[in-house]
């Protein structure tokens, strides 16, 4: 088992490196010079060269890449062009807020999706199934920035029940699990949970329906097992498929929250990314994308390992 996890980890390394290369080259693929944000348009040539040297932009690309990766591995992602602060500190702070939001949305979306999907599968073809499917399709189809705005109009503007902006008292650095902060989490979390909920609903419905049709469920009944026990069998059979979908969805929640975080001014990585893009803050941009991509790679690794632990039919080699 340990060998298996280790091997999977080794497979993930080249992927991580490739991702880093893509993040790095984004700067050079994007139109415009990365330094235009720093250098005044009318700066003399020798100043331009001096600044280029200061940022190390005069060296060959691959050397820049190697030293960037070297420092990134040690937790140094450079200094923000806009604020002069180390990028890593800002990202850590934003990431913790994004994780808070992602966990809350995932909790709502996954539990709702599992419940709806299981109900739909058990009551296939009835109105319960149709209602659950309708909710799932609506959840996946509605653009979430639009949904966010609608929720703000209803719950913040009309009813004045919940705040529409920020992460609560103390701003981005002072998150706590109390009501004063949690009320800020509710609207963005609810907005974001609909897509994972819809997708998990559909996955659970399809997976459980297929399992319910298989002969071994009849065979379990023929052994005289009671309902809770049979449910356990079905859950264990459905788990690997559902788990891999949930892992991917959690990845999307981390990386795909840009619009929602912007709508709600939630101080997470999406919000920070948005800021970085508008300020052409290249080191910050690279850093955020790299960190989010690494999370995605790690998440896939985790799902892979969990799936293998749960399904004996996947060969452990």
């Amino acid at each position, binding site marked *: 088992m340990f060998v298996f996890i280790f091997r999977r980890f080794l497979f993930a390394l080249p992927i991580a490196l490739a991702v880093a290369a893509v993040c790095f080259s984004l700067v050079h693929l994007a139109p415009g010079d990365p330094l235009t944000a720093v250098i005044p348009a009318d700066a003399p040539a020798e100043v331009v060269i001096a600044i280029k040297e200061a940022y190390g932009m005069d060296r060959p690309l691959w050397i820049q890449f190697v030293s960037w990766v070297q420092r990134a591995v040690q937790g140094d992602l450079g200094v923000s062009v806009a604020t002069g602060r180390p990028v890593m500190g800002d990202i850590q702070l934003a990431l913790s807020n994004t994780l808070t939001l992602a966990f809350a949305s995932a909790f709502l979306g996954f539990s709702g999706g599992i419940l709806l999907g299981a109900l739909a599968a058990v009551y296939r073809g009835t109105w319960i199934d149709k209602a659950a499917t309708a909710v799932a399709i609506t959840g996946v189809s509605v653009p979430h920035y639009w949904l966010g705005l609608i929720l703000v109009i209803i719950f913040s503007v009309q009813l004045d029940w919940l705040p529409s902006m920020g992460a609560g008292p103390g701003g981005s650095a002072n998150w706590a699990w109390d009501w004063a902060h949690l009320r800020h989490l509710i609207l963005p979390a609810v907005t974001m949970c609909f897509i994972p909920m819809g997708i998990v609903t559909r996955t659970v419905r399809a997976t459980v329906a297929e399992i319910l049709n298989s002969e071994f469920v009849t*065979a379990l009944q*023929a052994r005289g*097992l*009671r309902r809770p*026990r049979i449910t356990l069998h079905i859950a*264990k059979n459905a788990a690997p498929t559902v788990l891999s979908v949930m892992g991917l969805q959690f990845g999307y929640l981390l990386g795909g929250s840009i619009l929602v975080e912007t709508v709600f001014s939630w101080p997470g990585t999406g919000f920070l990314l948005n800021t970085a893009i508008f300020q052409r803050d290249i080191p910050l941009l690279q850093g955020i994308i790299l960190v989010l991509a690494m999370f995605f790679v790690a998440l896939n690794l985790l799902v892979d390992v969990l799936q293998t632990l749960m399904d004996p*039919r996947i060969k452990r080699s």
Partner: protein
Amino acid sequence: MTPLIEVKKLNVTFQGEEGPIYAVQDVSFDLAPGETLALLGESGCGKSVTMKSLMRLHPEHKTQISGQIQVAGQDLLSMKSSALSKLRGKTISMVFQEPMLAFDPVFTIGDQIIEAVRRHEGCSQADARQRALEMLERVRIPSAAKRLKAYPHEMSGGMRQRAMIALALACRPQILLADEPTTALDATVQIQVLLLLKELQRELGMSMIFVTHDVGVAIEVADRTAVMYAGRIIEQGPVQEVLSHPQHPYTQGLLAATVHPGMDRHQPLPAIPGSPPQLLRRMEDCAFAPRCPHAQEACSLPLPAVDHQAARWSRCIAHTSA
């Protein structure tokens, strides 16, 4: 002797998309303690449907069952689901045709046997494990202790079916339903599994209903046989008598189409012309008449009632009206 199973006028109707399907019509039979009955017939004739009815395993919202089924003195069709689940696996147990599909693929063989034993015997995990091990040894699975930890996909077909038998017999049922248990196996393994089943039946003193389409298998295992066609039993009696002197033209055709030693291998096998009817209507007349070489005008009239208690009967006017 009171029979262990008494089925009277069983009708099973499925709610199909294009109307009802009369899968089993007016089926009656008994099973005495220690006896083996072979349900013989081609696929789609209602053998498996009849078997599943004996454990009420059909999806309830799509199935209509009428008639009477007594299992070990209890009325199966009026039973509450809690009583039913106590009966299943304990009094009456089933071996399925394809063990690969009948085992949960993500639980070990051992866990699945232990789970069934604990459900019905209420014993500790250690005792149940001991019983599981005994059962695997009893069905002669080599290195049984190791096999407890095996997953279904890690075993060969023959081993899986042995494990399935071990599971079905783990709670010492009085009745074993075997639904074509050897059909999915290699010919050599078939015989071994068949002999094993016979042996275990003798040792444990169970009754057995054996579903098969293979005349040879029926002769091998059964005391009595009931031949099914188009959802009905059309001939019934001691297996030797029925198969040596078949009364119903369908049974005669079935036997003629069977390979047996000493036959001329260059001679084509005589097949019954046509194909079985679709079960879209309730049939009072003979369902076989359109394919029958001896059909007369009277065959399209409702068939006279037969005495199901008789040791030997067939549902053909040539034998009932005589």
